């Protein structure tokens, strides 16, 4: 029987906010890993073998065992690698609260954001309204806290952080300003970039904008 390869591998795609969550978590825990950039139009055998059910990134492979779904991966990383910080708090109620809001980001932000990026006219207006509503709900939850996890940077911060690079794109396509609509959220977005784990995992907003402008030109405006 083959001995499973030791270490951590991350199968990912540069633009994926879900992949970025894993990168942030691994960086928070100072875990060394091998990064594999996947071509999603031509998925590798390793990806298909490691995530046969969904065939999606991100996947982490730890000592030969694969774990899928970004928030599940982040919780796994938190449990397996002690590091200097905890991603989830120890109190069960606080944990359930963090999971709820991370799940809210999962359920709402990507779908609503994608709608905005792909639509025009009336549909775009509606998608815009919906996304701003979601951001406002998140801002209410954040309140006056430094992070969603209060003093501790945690699961919800990691879940939402990658989308801050998309703010500029949402604003440009939707015709709104995150700073104006959700000043506390905008401030949080700037604050988290002071963390090394976030700074090195996130993209320049212009890079995200360039990608989606191209896609929009080809598929939406054509």
């Amino acid at each position, binding site marked *: 029987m083959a001995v499973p390869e030791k270490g951590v591998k991350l199968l990912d795609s540069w633009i994926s906010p879900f992949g970025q969550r894993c990168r942030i978590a691994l960086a928070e825990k100072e875990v060394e890993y091998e990064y594999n950039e996947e071509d999603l139009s031509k998925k590798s055998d390793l990806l298909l073998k490691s995530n046969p059910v969904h065939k999606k990134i991100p996947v982490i492979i730890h000592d030969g065992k694969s774990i899928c779904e970004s928030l599940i991966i982040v919780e*796994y990383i938190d449990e397996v690698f002690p590091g200097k910080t905890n991603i989830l708090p120890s109190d*069960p109620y606080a944990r359930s609260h963090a999971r709820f809001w991370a*799940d*809210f980001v999962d359920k709402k932000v990507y779908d609503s954001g994608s709608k905005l990026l792909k639509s025009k006219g009336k549909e775009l207006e509606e998608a815009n309204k919906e996304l701003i509503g979601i951001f406002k709900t998140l801002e209410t939850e954040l309140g006056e806290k430094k992070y969603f996890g209060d003093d501790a940077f945690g699961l919800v911060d990691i879940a939402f952080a990658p989308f801050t690079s998309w703010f500029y794109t949402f604003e440009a396509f939707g015709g709104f300003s995150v700073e104006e609509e959700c000043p506390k959220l905008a401030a949080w977005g700037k604050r988290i970039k002071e963390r090394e784990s976030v700074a090195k995992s996130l993209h320049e907003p212009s890079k995200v904008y360039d990608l989606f402008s191209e896609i929009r030109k080809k598929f939406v405006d054509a």
Partner: protein
Amino acid sequence: MAKEDEVKLIGVWRSPFVARAMIALNLKGVEYEYLPDDLFNKSELLLKFNPVYKLVPVLIHGDKPVCESRIIVEYIDEVWASSGRPSILPADPYDRAIARFWAAYVDDKLAPHCRVLVWSNDEKSIAEAKEQLLAAVLQLEEAFVKCSKGKSFFGGDTINFVDIALGSFPSWMKAFEIIMGINFLDKTKTPRLVEWAECFRSVVAAKEVLPEAEKLVEYRKFAMAARRVTVADAATK
């Protein structure tokens, strides 16, 4: 019981998501007050404790609400960890990740299609939902073989997070079988899941919770009629 220890659960009898919370509470031997709600006329309590989604189940522990069924089950497992009852989530982090994966799979790939089969009267949507539901069940059969390692449950000898997540969906599938004549849990295609469903029905924590398929068939008739009256969002989560 001190007020801060009181446990309440807002729910509806037919919801597979509410069932999860009930089974978990029963498994841990937790006494709780069940507060049935009317999703066509949601209570103040529900709206107060789940303002984001306004859905059931909602667990209220003392005065603190916990929402979203899988999150509720994990909370129950963590709070009543030392009750002398079995753990719902496995101890090993990798096994835990796998259990969470399959529980999430039930929510992403099985539940939405069940919802369509309950609420929709559009032929195309129903046909699509049937196909997707069959595919999901086949996938879960494969998962069961791997997870159970020859034993009766996803958790082996005792029920775990995945068993609870899948919990009362077989009751709904039995209801769909009666209504539509399609065997979603089929002895030839999904023999292990058929056996699992039988075993699960006899688990003490689940016995009283799982609804009878005939009652669900009646409910669907009511849902179809109600849908003609209102398009209010009465889905459970």
